[in-house]
């Protein structure tokens, strides 16, 4: 009974993993036996509808064109196999759980810090995504201007982020923020999936970064991805005990690319996949540049009481294999 096994996940931030995820944070659901199953589409192309509603400065057609470009940005990743198909305009609004994938605007002034959100209907026994909607909050002002508009948020940039969720990715932590009145402001980020958006007018998130590409390739990778890329696995410890919720970034000393992962279980284990073969520097940091609920469930105990630490060894990633048994020892703040 498929219907009985379905569960609607409200927004992506509500999802958490309890087992190591390779490269990145992938959305997951705990299935029978306590095992965590990544959320992913089993069939492509993903058909999607667009709500036939205009908002100031953005017509439904302009919105659909921007969303299609955002889908295509993900589909252009060579090492991943994804595809989508625009199915038409509809009157239906997103987030209704009606069996159709709908993207569109909703006016939600009550969610004053939410630019957009993605919802899912999944088969909780297999992790298969059955439906996903994305709403853009029209309480904010939007633009589809080719070069961006300094006074408004860029639809395409935010769509690339939300479609990353739709495809099964959660948030990345490769970014730095500062606290300001009214919330966090991004200083810099190197992943479209960073949970805090760039400022109005910024269109940098129209392009995927290495971390995003590693994440989507890890979910839907081709044979070439498995053959040509590698991984690093290990654990983070503090005074001999596991650190849970640490963010670990791998930096290629050949390409300068950054790919991140997290310690997600009681052993402090992490796996970072989708890495180019070659030497890497590892950096472990506490999750202090975003709300913890942007990454994990409320009941996921995250240890943020440690100093940013580099691993003392250069780690060589093999082609098509893994460099294992790394232990990053951190110290309390």
């Amino acid at each position, binding site marked *: 009974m498929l219907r009985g096994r379905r569960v609607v996940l409200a927004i992506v931030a509500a999802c958490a993993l309890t087992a190591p995820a390779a490269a990145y944070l992938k959305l997951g659901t705990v299935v029978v036996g306590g095992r965590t199953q990544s959320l992913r589409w089993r069939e492509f192309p993903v058909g999607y509808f667009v709500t036939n509603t205009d908002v100031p400065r953005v017509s439904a057609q302009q919105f659909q064109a921007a969303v299609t470009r955002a889908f295509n940005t993900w589909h252009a990743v060579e090492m991943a196999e994804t595809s989508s198909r625009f199915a038409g305009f509809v009157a239906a609004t997103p987030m209704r759980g009606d069996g159709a994938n709908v993207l569109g605007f909703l006016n939600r002034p009550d969610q004053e810090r939410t630019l957009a959100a993605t919802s899912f209907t999944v088969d909780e026994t297999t992790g298969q995504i059955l439906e996903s909607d994305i709403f853009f909050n029209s309480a904010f002002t939007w633009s589809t201007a080719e070069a961006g508009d300094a006074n408004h948020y860029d639809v395409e940039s935010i769509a690339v982020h939300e479609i990353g969720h739709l495809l099964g990715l959660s948030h990345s932590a490769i970014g730095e923020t500062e606290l300001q009145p009214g919330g966090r402001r991004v200083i810099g*980020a190197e992943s479209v999936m960073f949970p805090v958006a760039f400022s109005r007018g910024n269109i940098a998130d129209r392009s995927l970064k290495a971390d995003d590409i590693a994440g989507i390739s890890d979910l839907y990778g081709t044979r070439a991805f498995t053959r040509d890329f590698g991984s690093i696995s290990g654990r983070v410890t503090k005074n001999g005990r596991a650190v849970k919720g640490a963010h670990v970034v791998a930096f290629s000393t050949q390409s300068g690319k*950054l790919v991140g992962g997290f310690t997600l279980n009681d052993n402090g284990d992490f796996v970072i996949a989708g890495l180019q073969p070659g030497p890497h520097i590892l950096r472990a940091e506490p999750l202090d540049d975003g709300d913890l609920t942007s990454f994990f469930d409320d009941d996921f105990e995250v240890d943020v009481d440690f100093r940013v630490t580099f691993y003392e060894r250069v780690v060589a990633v093999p082609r098509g294999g893994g460099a294992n048994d790394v232990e990053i020892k951190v110290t309390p703040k």
Partner: protein
Amino acid sequence: MSAPTRASALLLATAASVLVAAAPAFAQTPTAGSWEFTGGIVYVGGFDVGNLTAELTPNTGATGDVTLFETDSRVKPAAGLLAKIGIFLTPAFALEGGLRYTRPVFETDVSDDFENAEDLTATETLSQYLFDATAVWHFRGSGTGRTMPFVYGGGGYWRELHEGNALVDDGLEFHGGGGVKWWFGGSARWGFRAQGGFSVREASESDPEKKRRVLPEASGSLVWVF
């Protein structure tokens, strides 16, 4: 030489040359058709791999790039072992084949962390193998007959393994230089060989700068002619 493989033979020859280095000399200098075994130690220079910055895409209003941290990497000079076998085609001209093994350290300085992590030098030890072929021209006839200056040039194939044999890198190598062989007593079967020159390593995929590297090299070896 028969049953043993070439590699085994080279190793045996190297070991034998060390064990009997102090043995009495024989009155023999290389002639056309002579074979020569060489075994010894080698020094190969290092090179700077360069600086690389872990950058974040800046938000609107930021001045310049946002640096997460900076790195500066290098391959350090290393000592290793070498073994060669050569044949004299004429009294002056010889062809050699050889194997060189070194263990250089790859190190990366990490600094200027955005969140003030302690600076650190991360390291790993590489295993480098060079399989080469070399032409050697000897200038015979010094005052005592005990010394033989020579020049050499050749090419080879290098293969590099990272720790745990995790990653294989390889490429072509070319080398050249000069040196001298000094025979123990008159014209002896045993001698010492010192040489210096350069080793040119073709650009490899693993080199972020994709540069041809020119490295100094020097070696000291025992030589046995038969």
